[in-house]
């Protein structure tokens, strides 16, 4: 494929995908809402309640992002700097909270938090940090692990103190990853819905919760549309700021395979650093998870494995045996990861400026499609899932776009949430590829395709592995769109958990917790596995 055709493909396909499966349904429902009856848009906007909701949404998202970084940063440092036994396991463990259904986590938190403290804004922030730790640990930790240490070493030789080295060398190099992680955590907290409803109590509502309330409880589609536009506007500002920041923060930092950069735990000091960095994280993540495991083992007055044995028996709650949910989850997740890696990977190439071009020329000369894509790709994280779901319903209801009941619409919807991760993880890595390497390869006679395959791909592969693992985890844990679209005789794990929770009685409750534990295990195993299948794991140059 020629360079030109390749470049068009890198933004053409993702743009078409987002246009069809994101912009079109969203525009359909907003248009329907604004056209319909209901409060006038101005009334909604001038309502003091709206302002209150917007303000709460913004500050809790900012505070949640901060708290997430406080908890996750030490662990990101440890995983980005040290090699030790169980490193991959710890890294995979952080993803587990990320996939758990909010109801289950909220129930665990309610059981843990001391009386009087279990509702309000504080538990909301703690729960957001719990869910999002993985984003920071893995995006920042992975990027950190591939930073070339020689710059910091040079600074040390020149007499820079550890603090100065961190501030002047490491932090600027890490900046793109920090910005990417912060943007994602902020958007996730910004659109948080279940956590806010359950742990916040009736006083607190995010814009997303209010959109749901208006659309589904009060049937005021117009107010819902106006609110979702307000939300979209806020998100656009965030996206614009972070993409600008990220663009400015790129330094030419040659990335290295982590095998060269990680150091073994040798001294007592190293052991202390690793233990304290991970200890905080493991307690923070481990305790709520342990509560879930304990609850899955409750039988009558004592403990046992009854709930797990029940997983093989058919039940009317699911119309199938519960273990089928594991298979369904894995099938959907595989499909949606494939979509996310292809579409997101191409978009990342486009966003990063294409291959074979130098860093400086890139920013000014990027085609319009590429620039559009850069902002567009983050939007699914920040847009109202409720409205998008309703949009799918009315946008895809007539031939040739009659997809409502098609089974593949589930992985497509899931991949919309996964693609931003792929782009935001892969693009910074790609940007950091030294153009001189590509030029050298071209000079030695390698055609563009070969340059991409043999220069870019190996360097990106680590990021791509992490991104694919994220995509897989997102799809395993995705609930909102899946419960909307998946057929009831093919439930995924989160859907099955939710159905068991909705039925009264101790046995159903234990079954729900048992499935949550299964989801935890499946997530850890698949994350470990997905990261292993990335191409050319080590050893190049």
């Amino acid at each position, binding site marked *: 494929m020629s360079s030109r055709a390749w470049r*068009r*493909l890198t933004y*053409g*396909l993702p*743009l*078409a*995908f987002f246009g*069809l499966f994101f912009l079109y349904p969203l525009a359909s429902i907003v248009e329907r809402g604004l056209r319909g009856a209901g409060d006038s848009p101005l009334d909604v906007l001038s309502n003091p309640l709206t302002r209150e909701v917007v303000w709460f949404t913004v500050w809790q998202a900012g505070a949640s992002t901060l708290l997430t970084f406080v908890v996750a940063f030490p662990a990101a440092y440890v995983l980005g700097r040290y090699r030790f036994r169980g490193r991959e396991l710890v890294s995979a463990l952080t993803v587990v909270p990320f996939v758990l259904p909010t*109801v289950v986590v*909220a*129930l665990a938190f*309610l*059981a843990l938090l001391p009386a009087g403290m279990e509702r309000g804004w504080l538990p909301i922030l703690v729960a957001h940090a719990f869910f999002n730790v993985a984003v920071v640990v893995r995006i920042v930790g992975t990027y950190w692990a591939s930073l070339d240490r020689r710059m910091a070493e040079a600074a040390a030789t020149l007499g820079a103190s550890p603090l100065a080295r961190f501030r002047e060398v490491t932090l600027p190099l890490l900046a793109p990853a920090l910005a990417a992680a912060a943007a994602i955590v902020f958007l996730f907290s910004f659109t948080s819905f279940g956590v806010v*409803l*359950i742990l916040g*109590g*009736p*006083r607190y509502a995010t814009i997303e919760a209010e959109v749901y*309330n208006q*659309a*589904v*409880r*009060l*049937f*005021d589609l117009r107010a819902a549309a106006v609110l979702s536009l307000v939300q979209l506007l806020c998100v656009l500002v965030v996206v614009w700021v972070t993409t600008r920041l990220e663009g400015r923060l790129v330094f030419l930092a040659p990335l290295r395979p982590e095998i060269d950069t990680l150091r073994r735990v040798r001294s007592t000091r190293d052991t202390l650093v690793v233990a304290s960095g991970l200890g905080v994280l493991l307690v923070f993540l481990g305790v709520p998870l342990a509560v879930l495991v304990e*609850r899955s083992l409750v039988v*009558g007055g004592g403990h046992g494995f009854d709930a797990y044995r029940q997983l093989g028996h058919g039940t*009317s709650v699911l*119309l199938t045996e519960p273990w089928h949910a594991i298979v369904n989850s894995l099938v959907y997740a595989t499909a949606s990861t494939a979509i996310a890696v292809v579409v997101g990977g191409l978009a990342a190439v486009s966003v990063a400026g294409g291959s074979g071009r130098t860093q400086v020329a890139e920013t000014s000369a990027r085609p319009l*499609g590429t620039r559009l894509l850069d902002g567009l790709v983050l939007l699914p994280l920040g847009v109202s899932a409720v409205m998008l779901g*309703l949009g799918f*319903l*009315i946008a*895809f*209801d007539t*031939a*040739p776009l*009659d*997809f*409502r*009941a*098609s*089974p*593949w619409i589930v992985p497509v919807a899931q991949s919309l949430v996964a693609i931003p991760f792929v782009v935001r993880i892969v693009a910074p890595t790609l940007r950091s590829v030294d153009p001189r390497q590509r030029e050298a390869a071209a000079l030695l006679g390698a055609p563009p395709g070969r340059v991409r395959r043999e220069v870019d791909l190996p360097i990106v592969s680590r990021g791509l592995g992490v991104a694919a693992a994220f995509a897989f985890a997102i799809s395993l844990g995705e609930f909102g769109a899946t*419960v*909307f679209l998946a057929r*009831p*005789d093919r439930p995924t794990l989160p859907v099955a958990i*939710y*159905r068991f*929770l*909705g*039925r*009264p*009685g*101790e*046995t*159903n*409750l*234990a079954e729900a917790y048992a499935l949550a534990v299964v989801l935890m295990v499946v997530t850890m195993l698949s994350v470990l596995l997905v990261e292993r299948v990335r191409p050319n794991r080590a050893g190049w140059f």
Partner: protein
Amino acid sequence: MPVLAAAVVVVAAATAAGCGGGGKPGEVVLVTHDSFAISPAVKRAFEEETGLKLRILQAGDAGEVVTRALLTAGNPEGDVLFGVDNNLLARALSGDAFEPYESPELGAVDQALVLDEKHRVTPIDRGDVCLNVDKVWFSKHGLASPTSLDQLTLPAYRKLLVVENPATSTPGLAFMLATIATYGSGWKDYWSKLRANGVLIVDGWEDAYLNRFSGAAGSSGDRPIVVSYASSPPAEVLGRKPEPTEAPTGVVEESCFRQVEFAGVLRGAENPDGARKLVDFMLSRRFQEDIPLEMYVFPAREDAALPPAFERFAVVPDHPLELPPAEIDANRERWVDQWTDTVVR
């Protein structure tokens, strides 16, 4: 590759892979809420009787299901909708989403449940929302279980009640309506007193019942009074191993608010014939007798036999509180706002 070509490829691939929406011939699609359940044997019985395959599409809670049905009126996602309740009825009927159908089985149904005389929707079950009390807790603390709404404002019952937020929960909304049906214009004063007496508000039924209510199996909650269903006591018995001989929880009959669930044939259904057959089946004794153990509500049909646990432990209130659906629909938003102002702010 130009953008347009890429789009065409995506759409073509999508169309080729998908089988399109709606039903296939020989299939009838039931759109319903997440709490719907049917035992596999009963589902099979319908399929064998009619030769139609029954596909079930669960689409969120009752509010979401109605929202979706109104959005897709005339070009529905399925053939029959089940799960509209009397609180949502006026709203659901406002959008011209249903095709009238009077089932021949309707004669066997408690006529008090037939709320739409045009038969656009047909009553299938009733599941009254009532205060539940933890009988064990009350006998342990030497306190009488409450029997009326008034008692809940007394100091003896301080900090004992947990209710769901009517803005986010269906039973929460029903309980608010119960207080409006009881106290008329004085309902807000009643809630001020409840607030002063330490009522706990939570978001949904799961949190209220499974976590906060002391009477639910495995719960560490400390509130012995909760808003739940008339059928929750038998569910407590059936959910425990070994089954207790007496229900550990009971119902405050005076607090019960009527909840009726309806099914209706969707206008524009691909298989209207099959849709009518499905409504008939849902009113048959076979399906009606399957309802209590699957959905923990009571059959609409008067001659349907109840399972033993329901016969022994369930309370079917004779005169539950009611409000006309049109009045509920006209005032729902205002009432919920007023409730929020009174109880939360």
